[in-house]
């Protein structure tokens, strides 16, 4: 390249802008089409995908709650969730009374809550609860979970997201339990770009910390010394159609992780990139039709 000149693929010295954005007059008609159409298609799909991802954003982190040896636990939100946001709360609990203990929302703060299935092993449980807040949720709102029996150690944390589908049924979910440093949701086959959220809860250390694996962004990472437990919540605003949401504890610990893929608002299907075809197949007429 010399100044604003550069060597084109044909070996001709041309203004650099003509190479990056070819002047149709410099190209044969067929070559113009070959360059322009795939580029236009790519730009069109790229724009749709970018718009989709840009539309989904983190709204607020809603706070945490740690509580030991009780049948109920309440999260008092530390921030307001905006109108038309999806609220996702991770609930980790150690059920001393056995593995069959389940929890349910008993104070809903005016929202309609649903949950993923719980991932349970032994007494360790992890579950995601979610609700679409059309009118938002005020700061200091109280959401209460009650266990089916006995007492539990609880660790709870939540966040809200904008640009999400108002019917937030997860596209896909998965979970896993292990006694190890790495934690993982397992592979989540959503079939579309999505908001991936994962909660991991460990029992055994009151000082453990978690590190999320990219592209996850960690939202919450807190431990309770008295409970010898820790909890983390992380998300990915543009989680791939098949993805594993993972991280690692600071020590080898018994834990359960639960992940879900939530649908991003409108155009989820349109965001899927076009199926790639071979270079030549673009120019082979099919059913008598010319390539368009």
């Amino acid at each position, binding site marked *: 390249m010399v100044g604003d000149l550069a060597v084109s693929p044909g070996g001709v010295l041309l203004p650099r802008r003509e190479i990056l954005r070819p002047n149709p007059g410099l190209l044969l008609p067929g070559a113009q089409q070959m360059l322009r159409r795939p580029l236009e298609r790519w730009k069109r799909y790229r724009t749709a995908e970018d718009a989709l991802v840009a539309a989904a954003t983190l709204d607020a982190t809603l706070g945490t709650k740690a509580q030991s040896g009780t049948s109920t636990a309440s999260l008092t939100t530390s921030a307001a969730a905006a109108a038309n946001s999806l609220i996702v709360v991770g609930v980790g609990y*150690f059920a001393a009374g*056995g*593995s*069959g203990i389940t929890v349910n929302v008993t104070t809903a703060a005016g929202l309609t809550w649903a949950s*993923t*299935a*719980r*991932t*349970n*092993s*032994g*007494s*360790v449980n992890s579950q995601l609860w979610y609700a679409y807040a059309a009118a938002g949720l005020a700061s200091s709102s109280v959401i209460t979970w009650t266990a089916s029996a006995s007492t539990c150690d609880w660790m709870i944390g939540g966040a809200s997201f904008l640009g999400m589908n108002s019917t937030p*049924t*997860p*596209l*896909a*979910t*998965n*979970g*896993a*339990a*292990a*006694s*190890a440093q790495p934690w*993982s949701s*397992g*592979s*989540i*086959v*959503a*079939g579309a770009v999505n908001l991936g959220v994962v909660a991991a809860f460990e*029992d*055994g250390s009151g000082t453990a910390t978690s590190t999320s694996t990219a592209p996850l962004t960690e939202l919450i990472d807190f431990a309770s010394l008295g409970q010898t437990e820790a909890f983390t919540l992380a998300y990915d605003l543009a989680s791939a159609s*098949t993805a594993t949401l993972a991280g690692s504890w600071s020590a080898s610990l*018994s834990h359960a992780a639960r992940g879900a*893929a939530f649908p991003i608002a409108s155009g989820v299907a349109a965001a899927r990139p076009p199926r790639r075809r071979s270079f030549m197949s673009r120019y082979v007429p099919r059913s008598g039709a010319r390539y368009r």
Partner: protein
Amino acid sequence: MTTRFLALLLAALVLLVPSTAGAAIVHAQSDASGLGHELAWTLDYDTASRALTIGVTHTRNDGSPAASDPPLAVLVMVQPNGLQRPFNLNSTAVTLGVADGFPDGTVVQPLVASSDGLPGVLNKGPQTYNIPGGLRVSANRAGLIDFRTLYTPPGG
């Protein structure tokens, strides 16, 4: 004399009664879902008899029958020593390793449920299996079973 006799009798009874100390049923459950389908499973492991009871349902999200069996449905149990025991929920084949006493490294064999004597576990209700070598659970107060679920839904 009578007191001593009763004490001896009580001691004999204690010795005769089979001890179940340390025995427990360890439970685990989870699900994986995607593309409108859901694979949900529960697992109970009897640490005394080493019997593994697994119940698996594979349906559409609304509970109606699945379009087909899943292309991939594996429950991977991970031993505390790191040994992985993948249990294929379609074929009920289990992959075993050297630690299970198999000299050739890894073998795969379909397990037949002791409850009905037939292979297959999807949508059949709880099925009980005896895994060669048994299953070790994590030595902690939670009695945790390490697992992860590999699931590819129909159409995936």
